């Protein structure tokens, strides 16, 4: 949200669509994590005694950032729409990339290295970890695939 002109050039538009998507994707993944895994299923614990200090700080910063990104990303989307400059493929690519990256960071760094909390408190958590992280990789791959296809075409689609 910076330029005063109505239309921005296509390259700029693509980049902004991507960033809006990435921000919203990060926010969406964090939001789903919070509502489904913390609140509804109650698999994740609010706090785990094994949490490291750095884990607590990392969690706090990511949570705050993603909370802002969910709302900010949607306002960026609205801004692109009013400028007729939204590339929806680029946006969805960004959403998948952002959500997947957050999920992978959460699954590997926060759950495993910083020991924030586990996905579920069961005897064998490995299947849960595998599904969690593989789904993250699939999202990243799908996102990158979409982004590659859009950047080849070069212009925003009007879908």
């Amino acid at each position, binding site marked *: *949200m910076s330029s005063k*002109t109505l239309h921005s*050039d296509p390259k700029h538009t693509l980049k902004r669509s991507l960033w809006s998507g990435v921000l919203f994707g990060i926010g969406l993944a964090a939001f789903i994590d919070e509502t489904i895994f913390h609140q509804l299923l109650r698999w994740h614990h609010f706090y785990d005694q094994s949490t490291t200090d750095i884990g*607590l700080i990392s*969690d706090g910063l990511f949570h705050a950032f993603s909370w802002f990104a969910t*709302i900010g990303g949607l306002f960026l989307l609205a801004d692109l729409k*009013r400028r007729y400059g939204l590339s929806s493929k680029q946006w969805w690519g960004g959403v998948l990339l952002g959500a997947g990256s957050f999920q992978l960071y959460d699954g590997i760094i926060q759950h495993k290295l910083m020991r924030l909390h586990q996905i579920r408190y069961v005897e064998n958590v490995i299947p849960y970890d595998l599904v969690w992280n593989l789904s993250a990789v699939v999202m990243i791959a799908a996102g990158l695939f979409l982004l590659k296809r859009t950047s080849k075409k070069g212009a925003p689609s009007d879908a």
Partner: protein
Amino acid sequence: MHEAHADGSGLLFDLTLSFPFLLAIGLYIGAGFVSNRSPHLQKWPTWRYVCWSIGVLCAGLAVIGPLADQARIDFRAHMMGHLLLGMLAPLLLVLAAPVTLVLRTLPVSAAKKLTFLLKSTYVRVISHPISASILNIGGLWVLYTTDLYHMMHQSLWIHVLVHVHVFLAGYLFTMAMIYTEPVAHRYSYLYRAIVFIIALAGHGILSKYLYASPPEGVSQRQAEAGSMLMYYGGDAIDAVLIFILCLQWYKATQPDKSIPASQ
């Protein structure tokens, strides 16, 4: 304060204490009506009276009556009061733009003096987004991670001072993040967004820290419930703040449709 409630004169005490809050509502409404009489001014919007009145009510509920009584022995009630006094009341009061209202009600010479005061170095320093965040979130860290929380329940003066600080720091923080008044020293949206995220993180980290290490005199069970209330309640009110900040940002960057397209 403790004694006043014990011997049954609590009602009288509460009534006396609620006087300044009622006065604040009365003065605001009065100022709105007086300034409306001025022919060159637009009518002061009704929603602002509503914001102000509910905001004052929220602050009042936190310090007078059953919630305030319960807060002395129950950490969850304390946290509820804190959310009302330090977050929701400031948000509603800032939206009511009281400084703007005072400026349009006062005679020009007095209004000029007030503007001069608002431009002072002191106001500039404390209303800087970073110092406002430190006063607000840093103050909470001091309150809950030192003996202060325990001391607050021993001394009436510390009790009053802590509550005044929580309210003022919350107001200052909200004012420094969303500009609803003629603020002299403005910072960019991106700058405020970054500071806001760090302050929000500081609030969240403190909530989780309290879950595991309660302040002195607070049971583990109460600390757990209180810290979760602080975490999720804070998120809910901050979501409104983020929404308003982004909305102002969105409006400020409205593309000018009269300028021909660059492509």
